[in-house]
């Protein structure tokens, strides 16, 4: 799925690895660095996680640092908060984003608020890793993208990498962050392509987006799995002499407003892409920011290419739901033909 542009930005040094391998390496290196870091979740031990992101870590760090928990998401997040208060830095895994609901109380009512509630005395240096999004044809509840709900909860940061290099650097930043960071892993990209990833630990700062692909006619704003979709649409647009700038937000909280506003001021046209439902999806926030800061630069209404306001369908209808390069290209053209 990745075109050449997907790897063009990455450094050439380092082993070529998948996102799963990059994440695994980041976890191992950080656990090595800081003994306060714990790993906890369902099947993260000998199984190595259902996607193998934690493979080999219990063998390396032992069962006092890698905790295969009972099957209870509220239990995982709630006890992780207590472990934070007790001086640890837990990295939790929720097996799929569709299973975060039992933990929402702990996440929203406590993790997001403890610093504020304790007037700064206590904090929650917690990472919540969750595979999110569609594209792998799994059973029900395994394809959801609920990032907007997280972004609408003050006190949580939400980071979403789009390639193996960023996955490693952003995860290390998330682990070192002193506040709760939700780390959404686009599961369809776990093994979709490889990229050179430097061996040594490095950070990609949270809150800084990037110009994934420079262009001048239209700005396409995306994150996570949709960066590849946007880029594929841009490839096709290029064949029709349309120059598309693709912005990868990398995190939605904090949001790098500057990077896409600057781009839209230049191109005058914008398309926002996400898999999550349309209404109150994160795209609505992007459009509002553009309205507030670059309205007079716009040459066409901002387009949104999103999932529908429906429940994520079963595998047989999944392709009809997911934003794809066709839909993005059509939206790009609408902004040009306006």
């Amino acid at each position, binding site marked *: 799925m990745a075109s050449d542009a997907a790897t063009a930005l990455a450094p050439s040094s380092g082993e070529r690895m998948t996102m799963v391998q990059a994440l695994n390496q980041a976890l191992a290196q950080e656990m090595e660095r800081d003994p306060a870091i714990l790993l906890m979740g*369902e*099947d993260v*031990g*000998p*199984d*190595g996680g*259902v996607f193998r992101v934690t493979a080999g870590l219990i063998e390396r760090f032992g069962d006092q640092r890698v905790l*295969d928990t*009972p*099957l*209870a*998401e*509220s*239990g995982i997040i709630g006890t992780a908060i207590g472990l934070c208060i007790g001086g640890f830095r837990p990295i939790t895994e929720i097996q799929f984003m*569709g*299973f975060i*609901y*039992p933990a929402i109380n702990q996440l929203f009512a406590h993790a997001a608020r403890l610093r504020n509630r304790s007037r700064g005395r206590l904090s929650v240096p917690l990472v919540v890793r969750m595979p999110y999004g569609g594209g792998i*044809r*799994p*059973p*029900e*509840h*395994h394809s959801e993208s609920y990032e907007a709900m997280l972004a609408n909860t003050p006190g949580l940061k939400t980071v979403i990498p789009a390639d193996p290099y960023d996955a490693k650097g952003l995860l290390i930043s998330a682990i070192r962050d002193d506040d709760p960071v939700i780390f959404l892993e686009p599961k369809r990209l776990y093994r979709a392509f490889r990229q050179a990833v430097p061996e040594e630990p490095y950070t990609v700062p949270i809150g800084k987006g990037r110009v994934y692909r420079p262009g001048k006619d239209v700005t396409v704003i995306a994150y996570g799995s949709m960066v590849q979709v946007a880029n594929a649409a841009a490839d096709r647009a290029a064949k029709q002499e349309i120059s598309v700038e693709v912005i990868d937000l990398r995190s939605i909280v904090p949001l790098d407003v500057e990077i896409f506003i600057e781009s839209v001021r230049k191109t005058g046209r914008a398309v926002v892409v996400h898999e999550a439902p*349309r*209404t109150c999806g994160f795209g609505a926030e992007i459009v509002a920011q553009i309205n507030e800061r670059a309205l007079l630069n716009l040459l066409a209404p901002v387009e949104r290419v999103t999932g*529908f*306001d*429906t*429940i994520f*369908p*079963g*595998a*047989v*209808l*999944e392709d*009809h*739901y997911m934003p794809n390069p*066709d*839909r993005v290209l*059509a939206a790009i053209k609408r902004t040009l033909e306006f």
Partner: protein
Amino acid sequence: MPIIEVNHFTTRRLQILDPSGVVDEQLMPDLGDEALVGLLCSMLRMRTFDEKALNLQRQGRIGTFGSLRGQEAAQAGLTLNLIDEDWLVPSIREQGVLEGRGLPMHLYYSFCKGDERASQIPDGLNATPQSIPIASQLLHAAGLGMALKLRNEEAAAVGFAGDGATSEGDFHEALNFAGVFGAQTLFYIQNNGWAISVPFSQQTAAETIAQKAFAYGFEGMQVDGNDVLAVYVASRDALDHVRSGKGPYLIEALTYRMESHTTADDHTRYRPAAEVEAWRARDPISRMRTFLSRQGLWDEQQEAELVAKVSAEVEAEVEALEAMPRPPATDIFDYMFAELPATLIEQRQQLIAESRNGK
């Protein structure tokens, strides 16, 4: 005041047919020959449908599938006691019970394909669709059991879950509500030893799941879940208790998941082969077969005939599966609300324009 003993409880475990195929005559239920043979037949049916699903998955004709192999007795013994008025509230591994209650298996297979028409349970079968969010459905079973009680109906709601599910808060809330409101609910927990890669010993520090019922004010018991006769007797008595309004009940059926969690999992990564082999010797089907053969009620020819008959049914279900036309893409919208709001009508139009409605 001196320290006094406030309460105590005893957790019982029932076994009637032991792994070598010998029954305890005193505990033997009063079932005629036909019913005894029927229990074996329904287990063999379940296994045949299960093996076919594994096959279809390997050939890419269905998607992810979770096998029930090893749990046939735990499902067949219960199923024989179910009546049309009961409500079934399944989790994810109860295809045997559903098949036994008349769910056409092509629907189950299509569920594994990700075809949501499979979750439209045919009229006449009181069952909710399979529930993937672990333990969440148990609260519905508690609520249905409250409804049956409020309406004075002599029926039970049966809530299914696995051992892993008993760690979720929803499990505990369901038991507590059922206890408080005297719900006509049977909590039927198949403890198959594993929740994906996590063994039961890491799920709880308690010795049994059955004993948890006592904490919520009602009785629980264990049953050898690979002994179809014990499962039959325990669930018969539990359902009588529940249907007659005496309060909820919990059965923990001790069994074993012989296959990987699902076809997306590889159990050799985390569990010892010797453990699986030890449970193979406790196979629920072979022990019933041994018993019935010794009674002169079952022989190889009967088995061959049954397998041939069921295999033909399985093939017919596979044909029915493959004859199902693709659902229209607009199905994504058409069950969202009784009446579709304008914004969704607009999006539905967009889908039709983009996809020519799935064609």
